[in-house]
């Protein structure tokens, strides 16, 4: 890991550069998702209160922070290689460092939000259980899945500039079909629809697993847990393979 320090530098640069000169500085990384979560809570927890779940705000927020992590990481990774074009044209270093550092910054944000939310959830839900021991595994898989996805998106966007706009258009409907406000089983009886909601959407099992452990205090069902592990491995290996295959011409295209 000769480039360990470069990675550290990039993470710190990313953290400081974005909100440099603003009064609240890095706090903006927390404020944005908090405002988003407040808005969605108002919308779905108060105005369209379907409240089929106990402690609905917590049900909502636990799902929402997983989504916000995914969403923010992918959206900020997509243009990251183009943003750092000057570095890419200047020196030879492992290019994965750029999207990886962007995703790591979002991971830090996510963990900070989780550190706020988890104790409250566990205290109110009484979900302190051995199942909680699975949380590190689930989170590691979540990170791997998002990183793999972000690697693929960033390298594709460097070559095909339509990728980021397509993605930002897709993320909104994707958000609404993800099991954040609802459980698939409580909104549809139809088997195909449930299958699609639960298994075709790759982020759904991650939301489900984090929620099981944190909000429900139960061990996720075996198929869900297996999905979480396997999808993480596939996304990371696939994303990295695609990145390595395509990175050669980066200095020419960015």
């Amino acid at each position, binding site marked *: 890991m000769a480039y360990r320090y470069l990675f550290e530098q990039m993470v710190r640069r990313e953290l400081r550069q974005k909100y440099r000169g603003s009064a609240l500085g890095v706090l903006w990384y927390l404020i944005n998702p908090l405002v988003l979560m407040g808005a969605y809570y108002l919308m779905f927890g108060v105005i369209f209160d379907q409240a089929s779940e106990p402690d609905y705000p917590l049900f909502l927020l636990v799902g929402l922070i997983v989504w916000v992590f995914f969403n923010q990481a992918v959206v900020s990774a997509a243009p990251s290689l183009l943003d750092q074009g000057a570095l890419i044209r200047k020196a030879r270093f492992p290019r994965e460092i750029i999207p990886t550092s962007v995703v790591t910054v979002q991971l830090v944000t996510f963990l900070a939000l989780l550190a706020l939310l988890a104790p409250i959830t566990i205290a109110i839900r009484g979900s302190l259980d051995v199942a909680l021991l699975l949380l590190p595994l689930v989170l590691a898989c979540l990170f791997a899945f998002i990183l793999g996805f972000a690697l693929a998106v960033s390298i594709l966007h460097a070559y095909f500039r*339509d990728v980021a706009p397509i993605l930002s258009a897709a993320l909104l409907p994707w958000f609404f079909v993800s099991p954040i406000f609802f459980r698939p089983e409580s909104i549809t009886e139809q088997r195909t629809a449930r299958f699609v909601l639960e298994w075709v959407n790759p982020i759904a099992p991650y939301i489900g697993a984090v929620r099981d452990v944190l909000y429900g205090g139960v061990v996720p069902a075996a198929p869900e847990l297996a999905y979480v592990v396997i999808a993480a491995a596939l996304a990371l290996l696939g994303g990295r393979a695609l990145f390595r295959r395509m990175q050669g011409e980066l200095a020419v295209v960015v």
Partner: protein
Amino acid sequence: MTSFDDALRPGEIVLEHASRSFSVRADRGRTLKEMLIGRKRAGGPPPVEALRDVSLHIEPGETVGMVGRNGAGKSSTLRVLAGIVPLNCGRVGCGGQVVSQLELGAGFGREFSGRENIFLNGALHGLQKEQIEARLDAIIEFSELGDFIDAPVATYSSGMFLRLGFSIAAHLDADVLLIDEVLAVGDEAFQRKCEARIAEQIAGGATLVLVSHDAALIERTCERLVVLDGGRKVFDGPVDEGMPFYHRLMGTADAVPSPQ
């Protein structure tokens, strides 16, 4: 493209039958539509062949000047040697730590201070924090930036920019130094200092490849000359034989008084 850096001695450079062309479209990325249809946009200028079947073998410690017209392939050759741009075909390899000075100040975060940029640039070349700290004072002293080292790089003049960039590159313990025409920006005193520093590194065993339009600089610094024209190598030999060839090629032979 194949790279075989590991098989080379530190400072050794090999380029075998290297070819590389560039598309010259204004928007360099392909659109998704083109990918889905599976073909490139019709029309537009044909790709520019920057390097055509260039072979080069440079021993550790050699000093090589590279000259040619604008667009002859000099900068492309350096970018290929630096491992930044891959070849379409052929092989390239550079042994040891390669330090390149290709674009003036490129990669500097403009909001960050000179000091922070020293760390970033060191890291870009694979150095760890302690290794950069050990060189920090020497770099700052060499740059002559004084208190400006803690000011944002955005406030620097182009000369200060150059001095910082060169000072960093000059302290990275290069086995191979690739320099592209960046020295011209500094004032005469700093240029002399840079040349002295380069000479020190060469004395320490480093290999130098220098691209410049400054014939006098090349004659002072380099023993070997490579002349490129239209992406091909048209001369490779001692600098005192190469310079007359180069001047004839450029049609400037009369302008340069040759010693009788």
